[in-house]
Structures are given as structure tokens and as C-alpha cells.
């Protein structure tokens, strides 16, 4: 069975430095794949490349991104637009800035339903109510009429999750969706994402820097450093038996809620120096 997303040898750079150095990874249908790495590792860049929203300063220099057979990088913009929202969707990082402050929740939630799925306004609003229930938002009828600034951060993210799943896409990219939330809310939102993913069988590409998150909901994981893939495989395998020294160091540096007395060890300088040499930085 061919993977839903197949990234082959993707390289990208800014004018002054490389961002991605020949990244290859593939995600199969129904999988939850984590893209793990620290800031600047390139995980966000990969996500943006898939969605076609790379910022002006970043150029793809080599590679393909195959999605259900088509190369997203060479698709004409009109065809790409057809895919976006319907077959590929995004759960963005910052719920505060990702919702239009001047439009009601109901309008924003039903955009896709009305414009791409051809529902009438009433049908779309009914469906939106169902969606809000799915993401466990209380009093959904009132929420539909509200503006984003009237909701809490957690509620806004639930709305964005509902929006992402609304047209039942094949793939959803989650770009650090819990980073901007309170710790108390993070766990609930994560669980929600996992439940909805299981229910719809959506393929999920999960960008994160938090190994705890990876452990909770991701089936497979790809570890990135400096734009290169260091390690890749089933989450359980890698966490139990990390092959790369970097992954080991990451694990040692991550807080373990089941062993709170264990002290955190930062990634050693020498290791970083060696990694940099490895990737040729």
C-alpha cells in the first residue's frame, strides 16, 4: 500500500542558510506521525511546504512531496487550492491569531461547508452544531454567534479542530496545536485530537517539540535536527530503544511525569558539536 504522504529528498534554503537537507519520510493512511525536533530543526518548514504556504524567503531546492500520487510542489495553484481544505487541512498553532477577529465563529466554521461542500447556510450551520458537539463545546448554538475574542484559548482551539475535520480530509497537519495553550488544557485537547483522528481514520502529521505529546498520541515519529532526519520509526520502539545519540539526549532532557524526582539533563555541548559536523553545518 503506498503511503498517503511521501516526502522524498526534500531540500529547502533561505538566501543565507539551508533549512532542510534532503528530508525523506512517508506517512501511511490512518497513521499519526510525529515530526519531532527543537526550534529551527525544520519541522514547521516541512509542514508549510506540504500546505504550500512557505514564506517568501524560503525556497525549495530539490525533492518531491507526493500526496496521493500528485507532487504538491509542482501542482498548478488552482489544483492545489482544490485539495486544500477538502483533502488536506491544518490545525494551526495559535488559536488567538488564527481566527478572524471580525467574523463570527459560525461563519468561519461553515466556510468550507458552504463553499466547498455546497451546503446551504442552514444546512451548514446545523452541521457546525454537530461539529461543535463533537469537540465537546457546551452551548454550541451560542458559540456559533460569538466572536473569537469572546472564547477562551481552549475553546478557540477546539473550534479550529472542528474546522479542520469539517470536510473530512484525508490528511490533517497539526502544527504544535497545544503549544499556545495552558498546560491544564493541553491534555484535553490532545485527547480530543486523538479521539477524532481515530473516529475519522484521518492521517495525521503532528509537528511538535514535546516528546511527552509524541508518547501520548503518535504511532510513529521522525526525529529531526538541523534539517536532517536522524531517526524514524514506531514511537514505542524509538522511545524504548533510541538509536541516535541525539534522541537519547532528548529523552534524558524531557521531564517525566511518572518519575518527577528524576533530574533533567540538558543535551551535552559535545553532542551538539558532533551533530553539527554530521549534518555538515
Amino acid at each position, binding site marked *: 500500500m503506498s503511503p498517503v504522504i511521501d516526502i522524498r529528498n526534500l531540500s529547502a534554503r533561505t538566501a543565507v542558510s539551508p533549512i532542510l537537507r534532503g528530508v525523506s519520510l512517508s506517512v501511511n493512511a490512518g497513521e499519526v506521525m510525529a515530526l519531532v525536533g527543537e526550534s529551527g530543526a525544520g519541522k514547521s518548514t516541512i509542514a508549510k511546504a506540504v500546505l504550500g504556504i512557505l514564506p517568501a524567503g524560503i525556497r525549495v531546492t530539490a525533492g518531491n512531496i507526493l500526496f496521493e500520487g500528485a507532487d504538491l510542489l509542482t501542482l498548478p495553484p488552482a489544483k492545489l487550492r482544490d485539495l486544500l481544505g477538502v483533502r488536506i487541512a491544518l490545525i494551526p498553532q495559535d488559536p488567538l491569531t488564527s481566527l*478572524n477577529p471580525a467574523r463570527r465563529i459560525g461563519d468561519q466554521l461553515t*466556510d468550507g461547508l458552504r463553499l466547498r461542500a455546497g451546503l446551504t447556510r442552514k444546512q451548514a450551520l446545523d452541521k457546525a452544531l454537530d461539529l461543535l458537539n463533537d469537540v465537546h463545546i457546551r452551548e454550541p448554538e451560542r458559540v456559533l454567534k460569538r466572536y473569537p475574542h*469572546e472564547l477562551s484559548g481552549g475553546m478557540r482551539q477546539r473550534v479550529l479542530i472542528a474546522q479542520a475535520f469539517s470536510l473530512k480530509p484525508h490528511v490533517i497537519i497539526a502544527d504544535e496545536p497545544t503549544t499556545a495553550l495552558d498546560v491544564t488544557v493541553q491534555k484535553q485537547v490532545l485527547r480530543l485530537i486523538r479521539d477524532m483522528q481515530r473516529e475519522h481514520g484521518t492521517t495525521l502529521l503532528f509537528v511538535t517539540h514535546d516528546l511527552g505529546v509524541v508518547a501520548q498520541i503518535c504511532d510513529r515519529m521522525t526525529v529531526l535536527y538541523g534539517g536532517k532526519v536522524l531517526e524514524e520509526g514506531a514511537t514505542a520502539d524509538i522511545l524504548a530503544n533510541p538509536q541516535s545519540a541525539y534522541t537519547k539526549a532528548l529523552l534524558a532532557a524531557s521531564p517525566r511525569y511518572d518519575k518527577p524526582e528524576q533530574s533533567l539533563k540538558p543535551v551535552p555541548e559535545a553532542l551538539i558539536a558532533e551533530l553539527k559536523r554530521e549534518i555538515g553545518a
Partner: protein
Amino acid sequence: MPLSIIISRALSALVTLLGVMVVVFVLVRVVPGDPIAMMIAPGATEADIAALRAHYGLDLSIWQQFWIWFGQVLQGNLGTSISMKQGVLTIIGQRLPATLELAIFALTMAVVWGGLIALVSTAWRGTWVERAIDNFNGVMLAVPDFIWALTFVLVLGVLVPLLPISGRSDPSIDAGLATQFYIIEGLARGNFAFVWDVLKHMLLPACALAFPLAAVIGRVLKNTMMDVMVQDYITLARIKGLSSIRILLQEALRNAAVPALALTGVQFTFLIGGTVITERIFSYPGIGNLAIDAVINRDLPLIQGLVLTFGIIFIIVNMLVDALTVWLNPRLRHA
């Protein structure tokens, strides 16, 4: 918006208006040139002149005069014009509709034209189209209504006479209207030929007034649109697969309009101020044209009445801009 803010704004506006009244009152009474001297018939006696002076209250001290006038204004009495021998309120009432229709016509054109400039320039950002529009707009920003008005008179009125350059309508047409709102009443009565004639007369002066405002809107709105287009919610809209036009108009414009509104409001008050000279150039019978004559004739009551009128218009415009800002920005509604 909470009631307290509305009330405090209204009070503030009234204080400003009071300040305006005081300033103009004092200013006008420092005018050299005796207004009475212009009114007396030859052979009038000292007693006649004194009586006339007393009639207009010009023999009292400034503060007494102000109190009297202030009291009168509160009762709706703006006095009698020295040069035109009619009630000031009546005179202004007759000429105000012409200026209002002109200003609103100009405002509409400016918003449409300026909005288009901003939207097209944003839609084609990064290309030569954007640079061309921005440069063209930059040049337009430099040209004041005075120069536009004279250029139109020259080019479109004389060299290539396409449009009338004086008056409000063809004097030979009598539309038999009850009010001075030619356009509104003309449309209501279905007299389209007349309305067309009035519009032709209004077009050049309105354009002269509109172009500077359009240039300002073009620049300010373009800047706010560019700020908005890089926001996360616009990126998400793109990822939702919405079309460029929809993103521009439905997602971005509402957010971009709000910060542009305040400056547009200020510029609109300049537009209203511009009616003074523009009406003069086009011999258009509004309150702007009237104001110049009033000053030349040292017609104190009329000058005061006109400045008061302009002041009230400015204040109303500012209040409307405030209200519009709240309406467009949901966050302010629940402050």
C-alpha cells in the same frame, strides 16, 4: 460601547464646540472695518448709526455680546445677516443642502475610488502593478483640491467643454422642488432629467474634493491591508482553500478598514473645509461660497453662524466615525 464613554465623548465634543464659538466670536470682533459703515445709507445721522449699532448689539462689551449670542443660539436664533438682511438660520438652511449633497457625493466617489486603488494594489502586490499604482497615488496625494478644481475648470470647462463649471443646475430648468435637496427630492419625484443635470454640475467640484481624499484612502487602506494579509487567519483562510478575491474582500477588508477609518474621518473633515474654496471656483451656491462673501462683507452674525455650522458638522462627522469604528470592530462592542 458603554454609555459612559458615549456621554463623555459627547460632553467633550460640546466643550470643543464652545471653544470654537468663543474663538470665532472674539476673532470676528477684532475685524477692522466697520460692518455698520457698509450698511448705512448716505446722509444718515449719528443717531441713526448709533441706533443701528445698538440694534445689532455692537455697542455692548464683548462678553455681554457673547452671552446674548450664546443665549440666542441655544434658542435656535442665529441672528440676522447684516449683508443679506435675512435671518442667518434661514440663509444657512437654504444653502446647506447644496454643500451636504456635494460633500456626500464626493465622499462616495472617494471611498469607491480609494478603496479600488488599495484593493487592486494589494491584489497585485509584489508586481509592477503595485509599484505603478503606489507611485501614481503618491503623486495624487500631493495635489490639493484647489489645483484640481482649477485644472478641471481649465481643461474640462474651457479647453474641452464637457461639463458645466458654475452653478448647481441649469437656471432654465425649473423643477419646482420644495426643499433644497435637489438630488434627494429630484429622485423621489422621479425627475431624472433634472437629477442628471444637477449631477453634471456637481461632478467637477465633487471630483476636485474627492481626489485628495481618495489618494489618502488609497494609501492608508493599502497599508492596513498589507498588515492584515500577513496575519495567521489569512494564512488559514488560504489553507481552507478560499479564493483570493474572497480572502481580500471577506476576510481582510473588514479588519483593514478599522484602523484606516480614523484617518479617513479626519481627511473627510478637510474635504468639508475644502468646499469653501472649491465652491468659490465653481460658483456653486453652498455654504462654502457663502462663507467667503460673509468674511469679505464683515457680516458678523453670518460669519458666526457659518463657523458654528461647520463646527457642528465636524463634530457630527467625528461621532459617526466613532460609531462606525465600534460597529466594524466587534472587540470594541463588549469593552
